[in-house]
């Protein structure tokens, strides 16, 4: 079928039919040229497909006369979910990429966010898997990913603060999505100051995920062979576990909230919720350790947490401690961050050297006697993961 004829044919059709036809055409084309061309650089049909997709799926083409109503848009999302559910495994991402692969396409991204949100609510594994790969392709910390993540957090954690059922069972629907979403979430809410504390229900969800399945953290890493890049949620979560308790205990101290007055809604924490956050963080910490422990044997374990990540964290830690000490000169938190840095680096650099383990243990002994409870978590990561 030539370009002209397909466009004509589609233009004659009304909304749901034209999109359905268009999707069928795209799918057919992809499956027929299987193996013939590298996706993206594909044969001569690539532009045609992009055009069709723009006009009849995304409705973003300038030539497109059709504008969708809200209801129709919902219909479109349903159609897409259904289409991905039934599409062949190998063509799924090709189609997804065709639709949302272009960077910086605001309209496509908006549609993607809506689609993923919809997929979450209807437990559509195919769409979530594709979205996860999409995030991994453009790095979970990229602005596109963060935008998607923010919207999802908004939809599922902030709009209804009660634990969402859909979210809860996400690991069984798309583990890879959970992994990349978590990575992205730690980037949106790095927890290194009062402004970036993750919403309570989000923290709850992430903790439940991580503790319920210690393989979740390596989902993205396992895809490395296929997709070339990966970003693991470990450094981000590590940041939560190390920095979180310091911030929380800082918040608990009388008068400290004044020092870091903020107008962000989720940073207005009061004592009971802080205590709860502490407990949750402790649980997350354990889950993370178990995950690391579990992944230790894997050959890809080095991808989970790099030396750079650790160094970065140390830097954040020392900045945070500096600030804490500034705001509270009489603080009982006597952190010997130099030691921390030292140990972390040593651990990171020579994770195989037995000797260092002993060194670490005895040093830890000394430091811990200074009662730096917040730092404990960090140590344990140093010992296990790195």
């Amino acid at each position: 079928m030539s370009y002209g004829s397909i466009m004509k044919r589609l233009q004659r059709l009304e909304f749901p039919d034209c999109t359905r036809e268009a999707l069928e055409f795209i799918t057919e084309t992809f499956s027929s040229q299987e193996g013939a061309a590298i996706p993206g650089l594909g044969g001569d049909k690539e532009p045609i497909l992009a055009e069709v997709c723009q006009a009849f799926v995304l409705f973003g083409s300038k030539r497109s006369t059709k504008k969708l109503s809200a209801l129709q848009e919902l219909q479109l999302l349903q159609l897409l979910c259904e289409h991905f559910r039934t599409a062949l495994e190998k063509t799924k991402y090709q189609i997804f990429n065709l639709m949302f692969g272009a960077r910086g396409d605001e309209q496509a991204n908006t549609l993607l966010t809506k689609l993923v949100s919809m997929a979450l609510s209807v437990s559509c594994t195919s769409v979530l898997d594709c979205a996860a790969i999409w995030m991994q392709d453009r790095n979970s910390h990229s602005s596109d990913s963060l935008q998607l993540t923010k919207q999802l957090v908004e939809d599922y954690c902030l709009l209804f603060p009660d634990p969402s059922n859909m979210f809860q069972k996400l690991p069984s629907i798309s583990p890879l999505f959970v992994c990349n979403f978590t990575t992205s979430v730690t980037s949106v809410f790095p927890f290194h100051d009062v402004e970036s504390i993750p919403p309570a229900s989000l923290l709850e969800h992430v903790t439940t995920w991580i503790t319920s399945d210690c393989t979740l953290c390596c989902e993205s890493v396992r895809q490395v062979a296929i997709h070339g890049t990966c970003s693991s949620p470990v450094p981000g979560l590590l940041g939560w576990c190390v920095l979180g308790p310091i911030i929380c205990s800082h918040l608990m101290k009388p008068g400290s909230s004044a020092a870091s007055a903020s107008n962000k809604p989720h940073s207005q924490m009061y004592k009971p919720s802080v205590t709860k956050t502490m407990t949750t963080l402790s649980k997350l910490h354990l889950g993370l350790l178990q995950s690391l422990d579990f992944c230790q044997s894997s050959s890809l374990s080095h991808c989970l947490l790099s030396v750079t990540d650790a160094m970065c964290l140390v830097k954040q830690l020392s900045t945070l401690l500096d600030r804490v000490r500034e705001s509270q000169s009489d603080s009982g938190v006597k952190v010997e961050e130099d030691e921390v840095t030292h140990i972390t680096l040593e651990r990171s650099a020579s994770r195989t050297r037995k000797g260092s383990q002993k060194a670490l243990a005895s040093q830890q002994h000394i430091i811990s006697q200074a009662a730096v409870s917040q730092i404990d978590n960090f140590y344990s990561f140093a010992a296990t993961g790195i």
Partner: protein
Amino acid sequence: MYDSLSDVDYLVMRARQYSKTDQYAAKAWLITAKSLFPTSFVIQFESYQVEKAGRNVNEAAKQLEEMFRNFPNERQLWEEVQNVLEALQTDSSDQRQTFLTEIFAAIPTHIQCQMLLSVADKISSTLEQCRLLLLAMKNFPNLVQEHGLKLVDLLIMEETKVPGLPAVNCYRKLLVCDVMPLLLNRGLKQKLPADVLYSWLRRAIEFYISYVTQPSIGDPSSSVGADLLSPTKASIKRLPPVAGLLERENQVIDPWGSLFNLLLLLGHCLDWEFEPDIFNKSREVQWQYIVSQFNRAKQTHSDGGYKQVLHMAVVLFIQSFYFYVSHVEANIAAGNSSGGATTPVVLIEGFPPDMEEHVPHPRVKKQKTDGSNQPPIYPSSSISNAQTLVSNFTMALKCFELLNTREELRRDFLSLYGKWNKETWAWISNLQIDMALYQGNFQDAIAQIQNFLDTASGKMKVRYALQRACCHYCLRNYSKACELVLDLIQTIPENDSLDCEDVEKPNPTGSGRHLLMLQCTEKEILPYCIQLLVASLKERMYSTHCSDAVLAHLIILLQNDWPQQESLFLNVIKHIQRQGSFTYNMFFSYVFVVDILEEFAFLDTAEGGRINLDILPTSTKTLAQQRTVTRGVNKGVKEDFRAALEKQVGRLQEPCQRIIRKFLREERTAFLQNM
């Protein structure tokens, strides 16, 4: 070294600090510690403890498994594994125990198996080792192949280590009740030689027979009540626990069922032919089966065939005799401590119905072995399961006969029999008394009873006395028989309201020998005793040693259930008429039945033969001497006699039972003298 040790301790200490306040932190510390000191048992054990405290079954199981793999030599680990295994063996509802069992269940099967075997290997107590091996095999049937026979040997060896150990011991119990069924039911693939299987079978038979014939433990407070409530008093017999076993192991549920089952299993290995469900068939069918197997063995001269008959017959013999003895001699079964609370059943010779012509005394003859002309047994209707009792008795008898008389079986039977313990022997002797009596070997029966005379008490004493009297009677040793019966009657308390009406008397048909089966109650025994006395007197009457006293005593006793034996009475009258005279001065003290008094009045008349009767309390002769010898002297005497007769009729209301008992009491010496 010191440094590392203290580091470990420090880490554990940190974890413990958190164990109350923050489970997650505690576990996190331990993970850290473990990654720092992967070879430290202390840390690993602590993690296990933390998981246990948190009641996380799967995690605890994982830790235990890991320890088992990585620290196979730690004492603390072994103690814990032993705790777990111990919990596994107890079916307690204790929360801690069930939790340990759950942990074990969460461990992968092959590790469970290794745990059991290696603990069994390490343990020093053989009994404990056997238990664990047994547990292992129960849970992992594929271990039976490797360890089954080893365990059998171990148990047998351990048993023989202690000389003089009774057949009911802990090793034997595990062997017979647990290991053998397990081995034979599944797993054991190789074919065992026949002699091994026979030795197993012997051990099993010996165990079960000794087990069921053990004296039960006395529990006087409860046993009486329980006996009254339960119709099957023998089945609730409380047996003493087997020494060395735990309480839960001490229950031998359904010993007979287990023995039969084992016999079937072993028989199957030995290629025996079984009739399906043979052990639930009637005794008759079982006996037919044994006979047919025996005949077949005889035809083929097969040693295996004889062995099969031997073992089947032995097992059926002990079961039927156990059933019989435990019901018949309730005192033994319920334990001697319960005294006379239960009523034994007594088997005794019945008397032939009185004929017009005197029938010769039942001859003491050597009984033939084939069962066709065995005398019938008439049980009293008051015995509830009488037919079962009788069929079990005859079954036991037939089996015993077969085993004892056939040369092919006798030697093996005796060697089996010889190993049974003395309690079992007591049971068998009890059976042998009844068997001898039944077969007419009264001399043997008396000899057997002799063994029990000193130890018997209560109702059992009555039983033995009655059987002895009966035997002496049958041996024509009447005075001894009567003496025993008189002694026995003395012990029976007098009871005015005693009426024999509601006890239906067994009604023997046919003229041959028969036996009675009575309950040892006064109601049933007293009539029998009197009947025995009557029968003895009757024998006397027909003999050359007849005297007027014998006739008088007979008449007095015949009043007992008048007019049951009127024909005998008429014989006595004929006898008196033949003699022409009759002297018995105690006549009016004991004779009160109108019919009899009339008969005597008649004797006095011309039609009656004008018998010279001297039955007034004061002899007519003396009276005659006192009076002046004038005409009409006889007239006065005659009048006295008439008056006495009339007066006697007036005495009628006095209870017959009492008069007869008074007679037996007061005239005992005279009675015995005339025997």
